[in-house]
């Protein structure tokens, strides 16, 4: 028996699929936004931390 049969019996199961996709999509959108909005200069400072000791 395919698993989808049991999934389909759950009421309002669509929301799970949608939520998963949304979490997944938003995760990368948020991450990439922050990564590319941050100034290059601040990256340069932080990336020198190991070298300054």
């Amino acid at each position, binding site marked *: 028996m*395919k*698993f989808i049969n049991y999934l389909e019996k759950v009421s309002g199961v669509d929301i799970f699929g949608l939520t998963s996709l949304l979490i997944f999509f938003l*995760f990368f959108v948020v*991450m990439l936004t922050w990564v590319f909005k941050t100034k290059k200069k601040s990256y*340069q400072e932080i990336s020198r931390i*190991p070298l300054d000791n």
Partner: protein
Amino acid sequence: MQVEKFYYDNKIVKAFGIATIIFGVVGMLAGLWAAIQIYYPAISLNLAPTTFGRLRPLHTNAIIFAFVGNASFAGIYYSLQRLCKARLFNDKLSWLHFWGWQAIIAAAAVTLLMGMTTGKEYAELEWPIDIAITLIWVVFGINMFGTILKRRERHLYVAIWFYIATWVTVAMLHIVNSMEIPVSLTKSYSMYAGVQDALVQWWYGHNAVAFFLTTPVLGLMYYFLPKAANRPVYSYRLSIIHFWALIFLYIWAGPHHLLYTSLPDWAQSLGTVFSIMLIAPSWGGMLNGLFTLRGAWDKVREDPVLKFMVVAITCYGMSTLEGPLLSLKNINAISHFTDWTIAHVHIGGLGWNGFIAFAILYYMIPRMWGTKLYSNKLATNHFWLGTIGIILYAVPMYWAGFEQASMWKQFTPEGQLKFQFLETVTNLVPMYVARSVGGLLYLTGALMMVVNLYKTIASGKFIPDEAAEAPALVKEAPHKEYWHRVLERKPVTMLVLSLVLVAIGGLVQMIPTFLVKENIPTIASVKPYTPLELQGRDIYIREGCYTCHSQMVRPFRDEVARYGEYSKAGEFVYDHPFQWGSKRTGPDLARVGGKYPDSWHYNHMYDPRSMSPGSLMPQYVWLLDNALDTSSTPAKIRAMQTLGVPYPDGYDQVANRDLMHQADSIVGNLKKDKIETPANAEIVALIAYLQRVGRDIKLEPKQQPLAENK
């Protein structure tokens, strides 16, 4: 601004460093010994503790938890102090962490050789040691977070993020996978059974690779590579993407270890999809590492530390490309259960983990002793021996894996299997020999490092407390800034976010399998093991039979022809723990029950070559002499009842009566073939178990084909 003076603790780094060297050599020796046993079984010495099934878990646990574990702790404690500009939080905790971890390793070595094992790969240690690991892990966590909280550097450098993710995820994995019901001080049963146990185990197994062997080591790479090259990492932006994408995606990929098994199909697909996506962050990390050396490749020619780093990072890239490819069902159908897997893990183990460990030792030790490395030339020779060793190890294993899988799948024009299983194994002996030569070269290189570091230490003077100074961290006046900058300064928030991220992946895999009952279709004819079979099964687990024999017939034409009906999820509902295995050095045993007479098994255990000439299986002579400990039967039955195995109430009291009854009937069978054995010999219990494996389903009345297709 007020400048504060403080001291870095080098003593704890020294202790973990020395432990790394010792356990590295021990773990590699165990590996070499086990590798030689595969083509020369007599080197097991016919002793239970030194036979492959017990030596192999010792090798894997020693390399993962003792060698790479100690190396990671050494590197983390060295870099964390310097990245936080603060001494470790508490010296007492540091030493508790150190001695606790070494005590766990010692206990693991003794118990594994004595055959005390849970039978779950890389989580073989029994429950008291599992608890000790949890406690020491908490000590490590407090020490790390304490250091981070008292730091003098505002920003948490990316290496520290990797350390935080390591800590939180390993804690989660270890606790969830080690849920077990104790039977005695040295024996427990996994709380999960069959398919669920397999899913949890490989969720753990896969992510132990991800979060014990990869993330801490990536953290080390992000610290030691810029240090050794004396330039910042190629792209800090990329390192952030690398981090979040890696920990988000990794946790989902575990089911790719169970392709074509009885695991529900949707979970297998989930594993495949996430594995393919993992290529992106992994390669981002590799390129970030290699590009850091742009314009500095001349240094690679001079500096052995960088040489090791370059090969390590390349091996990281190769095995993280290979991993996703092996997760494709069509490739996995060839690679799985063969030596291809062994080749794959050793690219990671020897290349990535081993070489990073060597690199950081070559980096830290001269500096902590205020001197120069004794001999760059010796280190370069180590590098070349190691590199050639890896190639000599991996190439024959790839060949062996591919060739064996091809032989398994060949049919004659008449439709018969072309090769006996044994032929496909004996054919690989030259490859096994070449592999052990590769391992020997690698070990020789490591011994050269021991000499080199010993001489280095002798020529310098140890600096136990290294002076440093930095301004105290003052509270910044509030001003508008981008939110992730805020996050970067909040280690605890970071910890919680990482946990949420990895927990989502774990829950999505497990909840449906656990909650949806229909997910594992029950088979009415599958019954619990009899007491004698249960005892026999525990002997099977004790001797580590699962290290060479699978119990999982995949739905392939050749496997069904060779072994019998393919395995169904419902067959394993009473298997605490599951014993599907991951490698077939010997044939699959899922349908071995009833295949041979009892006397065949008796003779085969005494000397496998008397029954199958040319077999590479070790002798299990002690099973013929050891008396079965039946005093444990009631406790075992009760533990199984707790786990929901339907033995009748009060059965624990009468179980031994049934046990002796069944043993007598096996003794009777053996007598007919002129074999005299006492009914309480361990071999009798093992025969009972082997004769039961995979038989229940044959009692199932034939189903309507229509019902099956629904």
